[in-house]
């Protein structure tokens, strides 16, 4: 996916005037938040589980190579194959090769952010294959030819009327008088349409929420059941997962699963959590004949041992964006690349470069809600600040802001001059209001309150002189 992260301000402005988007953002503003709160309150151990979730992931990352080796050995033992892919291109090519080897025409897909990251659909299409998204939200945005706007709710931004429009345009055998006004009718239509696709697919691609080193199982968590049909019905099952998804044991996965659904949707547990290892066994009545795991690095190993290592703890629940006021104002597309919201503001610069994604870690008020709800306690604001430091050190970022900060920085280090300047400034501000380009950002939307007219320091010194107390 081509990044537009460098145009975040324009993207955001457009998002703020997009009526459909704003309707959906306002409609969904607090639903996820309330449900997460209720689920967390209902489980007295929730905060302790968060600590443990953090510790499990920290332990795994510190031993990442050996857990990946263990995972691979188990996959091999179960008759599957692991394909190591240093880059997105490696993963794309590997998957295409597997599809071609299977003689595939139609490929069904479960929801996978890694698939978005490597842009697999375009790659398969260019080679003449037909990739079909089966998660309802992904299917909707595939028809609308747009990327997901949320990591667990890809069509978060789409109104039901727009879904109906997309279905009518794509489902050419749909009678025009069939009503598609209600969610129920839309879901039935999608179900019927996708049922055919599940049956005709030769390869099913899913993501993975976890990889279990103990057993070689890959784990998917869904509510619709599309992931299971995707991986059970076709002859070949390809799992695409990044290296940070591995955890040591089923018990560790159980702990993280207790956090995942509660943090994501506020469910106690998602409808379907599936552990699968290897192809169908000789005695099995169904299941895929081949099982492949495409293991993607794509820059993640470079984060190990750096100030960004902790971001690899992420279990992709989406709680950070559900609670982010910036995401809530502009939605996911404004961020301009695969991962939106606070987690994207940390990951995207790592994957596509701070020079392209510099706006993202800046477009945060550091309000801290993301960190407050992260199930594995990733210090997201701290990491966004680290990106700002990288940007500052590299001389990137807005020149006007840099200049302003430079002047300010010169004064605040010189208290006497600073206070003299402050005394003058408040008088000017009181009389004339704020001039200058920085003030324009403020005054375009709100008034600049007038200061009282004298600084505290000056009044305090005066008071002390009057009362005969020395200046402290």
């Amino acid at each position, binding site marked *: 996916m081509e990044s537009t992260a460098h145009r975040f301000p324009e993207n955001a402005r457009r998002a703020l005037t997009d009526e459909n988007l704003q309707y959906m953002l306002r409609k969904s503003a607090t639903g996820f938040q309330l449900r997460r709160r209720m689920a967390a309150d209902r489980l007295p151990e929730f905060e302790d589980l968060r600590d443990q979730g953090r510790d499990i992931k920290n332990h795994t990352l510190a031993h990442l190579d050996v857990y990946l080796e263990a995972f691979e050995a188990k996959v091999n033992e179960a008759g599957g194959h692991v394909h190591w892919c240093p880059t997105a291109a490696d993963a794309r090519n590997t998957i295409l090769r597997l599809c071609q080897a299977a003689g595939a025409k139609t490929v069904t897909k479960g929801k996978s952010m890694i698939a978005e990251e490597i842009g697999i659909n375009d790659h398969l299409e260019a080679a003449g294959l037909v990739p079909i998204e089966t998660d309802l939200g992904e299917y909707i945005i595939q028809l609308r030819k747009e990327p997901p706007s949320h990591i667990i709710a890809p069509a978060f931004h789409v109104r039901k009327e727009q879904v109906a429009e997309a279905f009518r345009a794509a489902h050419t055998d749909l009678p025009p008088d069939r009503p598609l006004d209600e969610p129920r009718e839309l879901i039935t239509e999608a179900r019927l349409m996708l049922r055919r696709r599940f049956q005709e697919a030769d390869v099913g691609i899913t993501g993975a929420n976890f990889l279990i080193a103990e057993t070689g199982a890959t784990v998917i968590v869904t509510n619709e059941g599309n992931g299971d049909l995707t991986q059970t019905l076709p002859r070949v099952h390809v799992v695409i997962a990044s290296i940070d998804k591995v955890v040591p044991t089923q018990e560790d996965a159980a702990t993280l699963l207790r956090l995942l659904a509660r943090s994501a949707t506020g469910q106690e547990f998602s409808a379907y959590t599936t552990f699968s290892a290897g192809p169908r066994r000789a005695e099995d009545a169904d299941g895929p004949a081949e099982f492949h795991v495409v293991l993607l690095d794509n820059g993640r190993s470079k984060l190990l041992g750096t100030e960004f290592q902790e971001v690899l703890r992420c279990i992709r629940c989406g709680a950070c964006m559900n609670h982010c006021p910036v995401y809530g104002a502009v939605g996911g597309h404004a961020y301009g690349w695969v991962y939106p919201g606070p987690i994207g503001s940390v990951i995207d610069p790592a994957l596509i470069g701070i020079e392209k994604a510099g706006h993202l870690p800046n477009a945060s008020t550091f309000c801290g809600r993301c960190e407050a709800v992260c199930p594995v306690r990733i210090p997201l604001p701290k990491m966004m600040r680290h990106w700002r430091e990288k940007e500052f050190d590299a001389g990137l970022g807005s020149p006007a802001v840099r200049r302003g900060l430079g002047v300010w920085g010169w004064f605040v280090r010189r208290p006497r001059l600073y206070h003299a300047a402050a005394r003058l*400034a408040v008088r000017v501000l009181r009389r004339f209001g704020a001039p200058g380009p920085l003030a324009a950002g403020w005054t375009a939307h709100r008034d600049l*309150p007038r200061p009282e007219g004298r600084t505290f320091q000056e009044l305090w010194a005066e008071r002390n002189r009057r009362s005969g107390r020395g200046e402290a």
Partner: protein
Amino acid sequence: MVTAFSHSAGRPRVGLFVTCLVDLYRPTVGFAAVRLLEQAGCVVEVPAGQTCCGQPAYNSGDRATAADLARATIALFDGLDYVVIPSGSCGGMIRKHYPALLADDPVWGPRAAALAERAFELVSFLTDVMKVGAVTARCPARVTYHDSCSGLRELGVKEQPRRLLASVEGVELAELPGAEVCCGFGGTFCVKYPDVSARMAGDKADDIAATGADLVLAGDMGCLLNIAGTLSRRGSPVAVRHVAEVLADMTGDTPPIGAKG
């Protein structure tokens, strides 16, 4: 928790870190803080060389400037029993971020950690350290309260201001829907991404209007300037003040923030 005080017959010596925004925009808040601290039995000093806690530099990636300011601030408040800050975000900077910022500095790291332990946001200092349970003040108004992000999430300031406000004669507290949601200020964020900031501030103004309050309070000048500027642009009659002004019974001394005239 309060042990040996260095001065004045067991009264703690408190250094007030005024904050740059209070210094420039709202000296009344500084005087309100002084009054509240003195009422609580503290001796208040205001080190004259203070400028800014360094947060704008720190959050802009300029660690060097932030560290210079942190060192200057640490040195200024040496020897005082406490440093008290009428702001959650500057309080968070001193209490949470100075130690992280100077962690690798063998001299200043320990000093930063020592200062952090003695640094408190004003209202929580009154309630949690000085054990103030009530104030003597009057403010006949329907009041709502916005929880500033840093105070709330970095310092755990939530029920303390509500507890003290409950003791103010005439205050009728109407809880703000979305009180814990950011107002959109965010330091340089509000000028770097003014449209997004305005949307957030607009939502805050809507929520404030929904409470039917006459007066909105918060503990941070950044949020207050943003909220006041937004309400004023909308022609809203809701007044805006720092919570310390109400607790110190100083609402008669100065018009609300951003009041015309």
